[in-house]
């Protein structure tokens, strides 16, 4: 049985879909079989970010309505082996799917794939309920700002009350310049409140915007800071022990040490 991981945040726009697209692709590049599932019915965008929008024929709604087999609805990404997408319907909304139905789909997918990455919509309502129904672990995405952390704390509380105890935090869009100026929370401020395991920090990277619009996940461009971070996160998810580099203002590369002794 593969791992079913829900990527959620509470707050919108912090990088859930971007994280799912990049981490999913990175895992496939490591040789794992991956299916990414868009659970944002009515406001789907995982297919756009992955550049597969024009190839979506059937969605999870069609599968649930019995109009097509699950296998047929999976869009195969041709850029890398073993990566598939199950898109969400754009014409329906979240109340058209029940948690049980999503759970059945995810469990079925986990029988034939190493990783099922479910992209949850923002919020704590039915969309989140649907997305987390089958998950046995979660990636919580937050940005280092007060409102995002507040929402992440709420969502962690909800995940824990569902007995999803394998929780990993991604701090996204960290900007060392702003941290240095005191305008942005640092990772310790965030972890102080959220108190779950940190699986990775993704630095602010202006290349993300272009990648998103072109449907070419940044992971394919090895040079960008965010791409490197997503690579490392994928490797950690895959069980490898990879240290989190230090992000210093002015230099993106770093070593592990200083951070604990340093800034705080």
């Amino acid at each position, binding site marked *: 049985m593969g791992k079913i991981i829900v990527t959620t945040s509470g707050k919108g726009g912090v990088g859930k879909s971007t994280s799912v697209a990049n981490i999913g692709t990175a895992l496939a590049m490591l040789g794992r079989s991956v299916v990414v599932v868009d659970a944002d019915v009515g406001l789907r965008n995982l297919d756009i970010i992955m550049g597969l929008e024009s190839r979506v024929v059937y969605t999870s709604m069609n599968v649930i309505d019995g109009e097509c087999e699950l296998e047929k609805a999976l869009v195969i990404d041709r850029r890398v082996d073993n990566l598939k997408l199950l898109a969400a319907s754009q014409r329906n909304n979240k109340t058209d799917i029940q948690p049980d139905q999503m759970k059945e789909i995810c469990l079925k997918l986990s029988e034939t794939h190493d990783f099922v990455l479910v992209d949850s919509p923002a919020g704590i309502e039915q969309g989140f309920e649907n997305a987390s129904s089958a998950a046995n672990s979660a990636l919580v995405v937050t940005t280092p700002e007060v409102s995002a952390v507040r929402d992440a*704390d709420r969502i962690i509380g909800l995940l*824990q009350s569902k007995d999803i105890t394998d929780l990993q935090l991604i701090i996204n869009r960290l900007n060392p310049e702003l941290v240095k100026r005191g305008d942005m929370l640092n990772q310790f401020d965030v972890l102080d409140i959220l108190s779950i395991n940190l699986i990775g920090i993704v630095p602010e990277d202006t290349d993300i915007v272009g990648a998103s619009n072109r449907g070419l996940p940044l992971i394919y461009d090895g040079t960008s800071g965010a791409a490197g971070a997503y690579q490392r996160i994928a490797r950690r998810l895959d069980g490898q022990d990879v240290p989190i580099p230090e992000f210093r203002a002015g230099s993106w590369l770093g070593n592990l040490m200083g951070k604990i002794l340093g800034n705080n």
Partner: protein
Amino acid sequence: MKDSARGVFEGQAVQLKGFRDGLRLMVDGSASIEEIESSIRKRMSNLGDSLAGTSIVLDTGNQHLSDPDLERISKLIYEAYGLEIIPDPIPTKTEQAKELFSPERSEKKQADAKEIIDRPIPVQEQVVLDTKPSSVDVQKHDLPGREATCIIRHSLRSGQVERFFEGNIVLFGDVNPGAEVIAGGDVVILGRLRGLAHAGALGNVESVIVAMNLTPTQLRIGHLITRPPKNNFGKRKMQPEIACIENGSISVKTFDGF
């Protein structure tokens, strides 16, 4: 029964008590429905939104209210104060008395039982401020000098609420921003208080809030509310502080023991 009941209720038709994490509304069934409603409004005013979503038990003693009256009270309580009436989890004194009153029992036991019904409910002394009246008592524990206290052995995350109107709350952990701790008595946080704490939530102005690191979004004691000074969020060290009402407002001081 009626006279002593009125005496117990201090001339009011209802009495409100903290009961576990909810409330207990003791109703003098001999009063008219209008008196009951007006008394409810009096007791509930000034209690603020810390009560929203709380459960409440209706205790009419050995009187029975008619169904329409019960309906009216339930409606008032729910619509005006957001409280939901739940069944009484413990047998009332009346039911206990009923068992004892069975014909098989001896007369002496009947006399004992009667004494149970007539024994007045203990009333706690209140400090009276010249602002708004406090209207509710924290239930005294059966042992003298002891108070009902609830220990919570985990941190609270944003959106989580813990209530214990019956007495005090001690929490082993942090209270994150967006989380709430609401007690009829004192609130003691053995960790960081970053969210909201309400001590003396039923009107007790003598209650205090203690935390190892006091950086709340808001503090409430009794019917008073206060917010922290602007630069409060810089505090990272564990520096125990205590909040209490002094001279009509909430003041915060360093805490190094009682």
